[in-house]
């Protein structure tokens, strides 16, 4: 299995993380080593049925836990840019 520079560039787009040209070689090398190591799990047989039986959903009642607006001010205070109770972002549609 070989993890390629092209795949690294692709992942970087998907993950919204840029990798500088000078970092690429080391990043590629480290990720190849790590992925090469963890691939050993494919030596084990087994089916997905075995993995699923231990999992189940826990859902709480759909009830109001906070009064509307009770945390708005504190939360909005942490947003990098806001106006009149709205988070401001860069223009999305031109």
């Amino acid at each position: 299995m070989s993890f390629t520079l092209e795949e690294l560039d692709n992942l970087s787009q998907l993950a919204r993380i840029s990798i500088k040209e000078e970092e690429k070689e080391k990043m590629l090398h480290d990720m190849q080593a790590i992925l090469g190591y963890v691939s050993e799990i494919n030596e084990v047989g087994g089916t997905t049925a075995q993995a699923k039986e231990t999992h189940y959903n826990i859902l709480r009642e759909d009830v109001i836990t906070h009064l509307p607006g009770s945390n708005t001010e504190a939360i909005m205070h942490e947003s990098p840019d806001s106006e009149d109770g709205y988070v401001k972002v860069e223009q999305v549609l031109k």
Partner: protein
Amino acid sequence: MRKTLQQIQEELKNGTTTVSALVEEAHTVISEKDESIHAILGMYSNDLIESQIARAEQMLKDGTATALTGVPIVLKDNIVVKGERATAASKILADYTAVYDATVVKKLKEAGAILLGRANMDEFAMGGSTENSAFGVTKNPHDITRVAGGSSGGSSAVVAYGGVPVSLGSDTGGSIRQPASFCGIVGLKPTYGAVSRYGLMAMGSSLDQIGPFATCVDDVEAVFNIIKGADDLDATSIKDIPAVPVNSRKKIGVPRSFVEREGIDPEVLENFNASLEKLKSNGYEIVDIQLEHLEKALSVYYVVVFAEISSNMSRYDGIRYGLSLKDENASNSMLGVYFKTRTDGLGDEVRRRILLGTYVLSSGYYDAYYNKANIVRAMLREEFASVFKDVDAIAMPTSPIPAFKIGEKSHDPLAMYLADIFTVPINIVGVPAISLPSGVTKNNLPLSLQLIAPHFGESTLFSIGRDFEKIS
């Protein structure tokens, strides 16, 4: 501060000390020692500290004091306290103020503990040495050229150098037990679901648990008893905890072929065998056990943790909170904010793990990595359950090596991961484990014994741990 929690409560009750004196003493020791160790990222506001002192004094007066009333405590900086800074040792949250209390914080406040300050850690708890902190490494109080361990290195070092009697950390793959081991103190990773994760910044959500550090088993138990319990705000916290009796037959299993591996430090192995001999001479039966897929646990762990990290870290986007950077050169200014913020705000290890997680979850590789990891994880769970039908606890060293030199492994992430070999299987299975001091190397570096119990078998760990304290 070298007093046990029990001694502190006695002194508070008989008037030998006061809450304010305890807080002042903690401040003095930290300001003296932390310059060279760097366990602490910052102190909580005076308002919070003063209000907790007042609450503790009232509780003492009312006779409602708990084991932690008036006790200064430090929290790993990924646990949020309302109105206080919480950075996860990341540039991306360098100026973030938390808007609510974690459930453990609520419980500590109600118990009258004095929340004192924030402990250094690997950025977002990703690492095993605190070298990944954006604010500088925590040094080992036993040898400042070495790491204190990680990711909860600050929480461990501050207790080890006597700044506070107890602290909280979080353990996703060993992040409480390994620094406890490196610093020569006791650290507990509770059963998954025993302690609420509400207000703990998520890394690997199916693996993370909050747990205590202290200098003795009694104190770790006292803190655990205060922070544990089901919580409506954490759907994975367990409501109906089965009573697990502490068995008197005391049989400990050792996965010997797994422990005696290439790469284990000879002094670690020698000390581990000596610990087993001590337990044997104290009436414990030691037997060999086999866990078929234990060798694969490290790979299972990293695939799962990468996947969960890439999902959990997507919230740091420069929009809703934390650092936000614009990229004037970007063709799409919205995407520019995402890229610039995440690229400049997150450290190398965090970015590497996000990329690896994105890879193992991508459609072409999902079955080969994430799906397969979950299958082997289920097998491991069954293998542990089967072994626990015969033994009360499993013993392993906590770490294959004592505290390593600062910089020794930071250039090689895989080498760093391999040092987690004895701690990660426990998080994969979700069982509790404790790291107990077991002596020192020739160079006076702390060594430790790790004990593992079945789900919700913390009492077994405390019971054996107390026996071990007496004989080690």
